[in-house]
């Protein structure tokens, strides 16, 4: 699929602070793309440049082949966007907000507005003033606003902010539906790793203005190898046996009578065979899938939700070996 978002060597400084340092990424048409990173990583700056709100100091940001700053009007025809804080007019009703934003695209399509209100579940409150809406309702209306004019790309900056678990679940289903049924490309920026993990096909992890990793989610979660938990009859002997297998390391497991094995490649069967050949009883061998959270911590050195995640502190980790665009 051709890329709809192409970012090449993008740099941006605010005074002495380098917000983005030569970042590159691309998003293919129809893809659900996760844009991850702790606060201050440069996610919002990248999005502002893509939206044409700010000009990059270096590099290019293109949407559908159009430069997001110099060819803004053409690029903007292709996307709809929501911001971290839903930007709506509180003194107008939900429907009036949609009408107002629709006028910036051309003639108002009342049918589409009604459909969008229905899609985001806001039909009942459509005629109430937005200032009376909850945060979750504003987020949903902002999403409807982004979908006005049937864009090919949705750029969503922290769209789950203020949503309750039901709302988050509903949004996930809606976005998946939009991607599969309408072929919409979704550029999803979030700090909620579980959301990204469940929703996105591919992710980029940004930290301190640099791309730390980019690639397929499954690939990214295994880029540091495979991990197994093996329940054995003799832990010490099993560790010795596994360590003799080329490319595998073993250590005592957190569960009684188990070992944790890490390998560069899938060595599950070989290790099982070696253990059995050495006369060690193997009760079970579990292939432990690494979560996105583990990868994220490895890459950024920041635990999601920790105080560090707000300040993006801690030593900068080394770049990952894979997927650097």
């Amino acid at each position: 699929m051709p890329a709809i978002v192409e970012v090449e060597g993008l740099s941006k400084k605010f005074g002495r602070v380098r917000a983005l340092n030569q970042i590159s990424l691309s998003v293919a048409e129809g893809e659900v793309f996760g844009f991850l990173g702790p606060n201050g990583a440069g996610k919002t700056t990248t999005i502002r440049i893509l939206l044409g709100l700010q000009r990059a100091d270096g590099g290019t940001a293109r949407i559908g082949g159009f430069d997001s700053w110099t060819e803004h009007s053409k690029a903007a025809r292709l996307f709809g966007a929501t911001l971290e804080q839903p930007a709506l007019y509180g003194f107008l009703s939900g429907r009036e907000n949609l009408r107002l934003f629709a006028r910036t695209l051309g003639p108002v399509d009342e049918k589409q507005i009604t459909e969008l209100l229905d899609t985001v579940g806001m039909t009942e409150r459509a005629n109430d003033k937005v200032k009376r809406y909850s945060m979750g309702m504003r987020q949903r209306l902002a999403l409807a606003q982004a979908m006005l004019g049937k864009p090919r790309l949705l750029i969503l900056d922290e769209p789950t902010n203020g949503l309750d678990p039901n709302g988050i679940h509903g949004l996930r289903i809606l976005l998946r539906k939009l991607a599969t049924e309408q072929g919409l490309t979704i550029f999803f920026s979030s700090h909620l790793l579980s959301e990204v993990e469940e929703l996105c096909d591919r992710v980029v992890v940004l930290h301190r203005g640099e791309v730390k990793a980019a690639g397929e989610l499954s690939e990214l979660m295994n880029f540091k190898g495979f991990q197994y938990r093996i329940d054995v009859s003799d832990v010490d002997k099993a560790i010795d046996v596994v360590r003799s297998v080329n490319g595998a390391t073993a250590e005592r497991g957190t569960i009684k009578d188990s070992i944790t094995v890490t390998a560069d490649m899938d060595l599950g069967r070989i290790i099982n065979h070696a253990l059995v050949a050495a006369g060690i009883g193997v009760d079970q061998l579990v292939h432990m899938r690494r979560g996105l959270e583990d990868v994220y911590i490895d890459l950024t050195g920041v635990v999601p939700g920790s105080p560090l995640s707000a300040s993006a502190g801690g030593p900068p980790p080394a770049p990952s070996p894979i997927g650097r665009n």
Partner: protein
Amino acid sequence: MFFNLVRNELQKTWRSRWIVFAVMGVIFLLIAGGLYTYYVVTVGRWSPPAAVAWQTTVRADIANNQQELNSLEQIKQQGDGPQGGGQFGLDDAIAQVQQQINDDQYLLDHDIAPVQSFSITLAALFALGGIVMFLLVRIFGWLASEQIAGERSDRTIAILLSRPMSRDQLLLAKAVASFLISLAVVVVTFLIVYAIWAFVTGSVGPLTAQVGIAVDGSKPLAGNNLVVMSIPLFVLMCLGGAMLGVLCVQGMSLLVSAVFGRWAAIGITLAVLFGAPLVSTVVGGIIFAISQNPNKAHFLNYLFVNVLAPVSALTPVFGNGSAGPSGTGMNEFGFQIATLAVWTVAFFLAAWLIFHRKQEAG
């Protein structure tokens, strides 16, 4: 598309600030009601007074001025007043009153109505200049200062700028919407003041007659020092002058709005619009105290805040008096219009340059 953008801006201003217009309407009603009550109480009648022909008014002016001249001459002969040729000496006062008599007589002899003769011209002078425009211009400045700054504070600017339109279009739409709103308010204000004057003078007056205005109000009305124009043209000229003042303020407000957030923009705009005349009055007072010559402070007029209602420069509204310290007449009006035009272009150019390149945080 552009029409849609202007419509959006009109809708936003009306829906978010309708209370301002409602308050203005109530104030107008209260003023009109108060004036009417005062009239009923003092004159003792409910209906308008009988209309008086402008010639009668001018003759009465001449008679009054003649009386004043006689008393000044008496004072001079008795040697009671200040003598000599000082700026405000008795001789100057006598010369001034004599000139008023001559001017009025000249207008009568040539059948040219002074500009204050009719209710519609009085309404143009009063509603499109003076205190009414002084206040309206500041309200328009406030509203315009919110145009971009308010969107920035509400973060809606980011969504608007991410839409497929240029920043130039958005800025122009905001300027056009601000101007249209102010034009509507000014025209309605003018019509209300006209209605009040029509009641006060007892006549809606002629709408197609001609009126005379001095070219230089400080010199005798005669020959080349008099412009005669039709009432519609005069009203249009006043409306144009008033709206240029409004446009100038809106340019300044948009410039401030392009840089700051809502409250800073409103604060700075109102501080400039209310503070600058205050400062120039103080500076003018100091200059006068030192030089004893009011004309020395005339240059202050061209610091744009003093000429936001250039209609006021045409002639003193009440009375046919000669020039005040800041000068009156078509020449002064022309200078003030030129000054405003330069300021207006400069403000809009600066607002455009800044907004065009502004990096929005969203």
